């Protein structure tokens, strides 16, 4: 924006980050869409990848790729070392006690399904209850509904306020029934931006002997997670939200629980010995990783975590918070615009509606201005129902976004108003 060369760096320097340098590491950001510079604000759906991640995947396929855990040849040994090296990076990132507690899956959804199927299938019985919150993504609703259908258990939903904050007393009341076998809740809501008090939620569940699962799909690129400090039983997240490749997810689980749980899928890599009479399962984590995994994808996730660590998640969070505050103030200036989700503790995204204009129309018009946002129900239809809207528009931020991009969003929204009035 500034014409003065001495000030040129000012809009891109934030929270101590060199944004010009960071942006330069993302090849995809250097393009125009519909003739306008790309402003990518759909990070909550999926973030973009830095060159370090693209290179790590390319290097794997170009120089040392082979199947893991079986070959005696050099490439297999190198692939296995890189794959298991990535597991150690994930362990360190979450501060888990052991690499045996890190299971690679396809995505958060599969991680949650693994727990619902294996842990849920072996411990949940008729009349038992699973507690979730009203702000869950479909991926933390439907697996539990399927489990309830199979077992005759019931799903209990803790409500939230108009501001989008969980009503902790109601959550606690639900835990008190004496029948709850698991509390599963989202860390950062993808539809509202609410950061839930997960530490407290875990403590409340543990006080009643109830294990917990945290859906970390949205929180993982924005909030430092220490699973040992949280003390949750399970933590699930996806690689593609934290600048890694899609098709890779992680399930953290406490070792004792994972050991007691039956396998999720059967096949190669998860066995110790197979005869037609009986099969002995492999030790953790292999027991839960049947079949050839997304080897290069996992290695790419390792590179993404290295990249994030080099910048520092705290600096990333501070920068995103500043962007969110800046965006929130500007969005509120637009007549008829209503922000959905105004929790005190909020991160990284602003969901909104504009009176008389459907979010899909907002999305289409913004796209023509180069601004990519999400319009829809965000796979959180119960949240939409709670507010009585079919959909919202959502701008979500990542480390590479700038104040100039927020300005572009706001300018494009004024165009939406202009076109419709």
């Amino acid at each position, binding site marked *: 924006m500034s014409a003065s060369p001495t000030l040129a760096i000012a809009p891109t320097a934030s929270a101590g980050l060199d944004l010009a340098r960071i942006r330069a590491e993302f090849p995809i950001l250097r393009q125009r869409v519909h003739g306008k510079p790309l402003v990518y604000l759909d990070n909550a759906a999926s973030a973009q990848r830095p060159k370090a991640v693209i290179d790590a995947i390319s290097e794997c396929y170009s120089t040392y790729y082979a199947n893991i855990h079986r070959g005696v040849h050099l490439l297999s040994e190198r692939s296995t070392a890189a794959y298991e090296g990535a597991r150690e990076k994930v362990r360190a990132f979450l501060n888990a006690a052991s690499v045996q507690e890190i299971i690679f899956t396809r995505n958060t959804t599969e991680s949650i399904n693994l727990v619902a199927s294996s842990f849920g299938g072996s411990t949940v019985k008729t009349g038992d209850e699973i507690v979730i919150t009203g702000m869950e993504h479909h991926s933390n609703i439907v697996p539990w509904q399927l489990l309830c259908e199979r077992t005759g258990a019931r799903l209990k939903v803790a409500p939230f306020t108009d501001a989008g904050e969980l009503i902790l007393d109601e959550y606690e009341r639900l835990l008190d029934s004496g029948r709850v076998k698991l509390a599963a809740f989202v860390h950062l809501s993808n539809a509202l931006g609410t950061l839930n008090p997960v530490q407290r939620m875990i403590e409340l569940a543990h006080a009643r002997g109830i294990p917990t699962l945290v859906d970390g799909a949205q929180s993982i690129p924005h909030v430092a997670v220490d699973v040992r400090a949280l003390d949750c039983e399970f933590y699930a997240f996806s690689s593609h939200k934290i600048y890694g490749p899609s098709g890779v997810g992680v399930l953290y689980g406490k070792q004792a629980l994972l050991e007691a749980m039956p396998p999720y899928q059967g096949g190669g890599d998860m066995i110790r010995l197979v005869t037609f009479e009986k099969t002995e399962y492999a030790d953790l984590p292999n027991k839960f990783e049947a079949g050839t995994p997304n080897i290069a994808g996992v290695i790419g996730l390792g590179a993404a975590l290295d990249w994030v660590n080099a910048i520092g998640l705290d600096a990333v969070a501070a920068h995103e918070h500043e962007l969110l505050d800046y965006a929130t103030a500007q969005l509120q200036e637009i007549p008829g615009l209503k922000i959905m989700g105004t929790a005190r503790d909020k991160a990284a995204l602003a969901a909104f509606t504009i009176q008389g204009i459907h*979010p*899909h129309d907002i999305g289409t018009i913004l796209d*023509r201005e180069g601004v990519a946002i999400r319009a*829809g129900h965000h796979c959180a*239809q119960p949240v939409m129902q709670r507010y009585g809207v*079919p*959909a919202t528009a959502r701008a979500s931020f990542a480390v590479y976004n700038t104040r100039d991009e927020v300005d572009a969003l706001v300018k494009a929204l004024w*165009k939406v108003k202009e076109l419709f009035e």
Partner: protein
Amino acid sequence: MNDLRDLYQEVILDHNKRPRNFRILPQPTHHADGVNPLCGDRISVFLDIEDGIIRDIAFQGAGCAISSASASLMTEALKGKPVAEVEHLFEAFHNVVTTDCECPRGLGKLGVLAGVRDYPSRVKCATLAWHAVRAALERHAEPVATE
């Protein structure tokens, strides 16, 4: 902004703001719901058919400007038409919103939706009401989805 005007033509903005036949028919001979699972939009259509002629047609629901205007324009286009013409009109309309074909004269005002062809993600919005009408004529009990 100019190419956006090709999509959001005045007629579309007008029908979005003041949808025609936007009501419930109390005793329709045919009725169906259409759902776009992508965005959660939902539309209900009601028809009164007598001797193979659409005597009355109406719709209700909440959707984007494209789906609302398309539904509104569709009700205007179909009122008074023989049921047998619905399929022909739908085919012609579908061609107009998905291909570079010349807009046939018989489509009348429906042609204003031709701009949708440049926005593939919005084709389903433009055809939702039509899918619902076709389902109503086939007497589908379950809501019909665009996917």
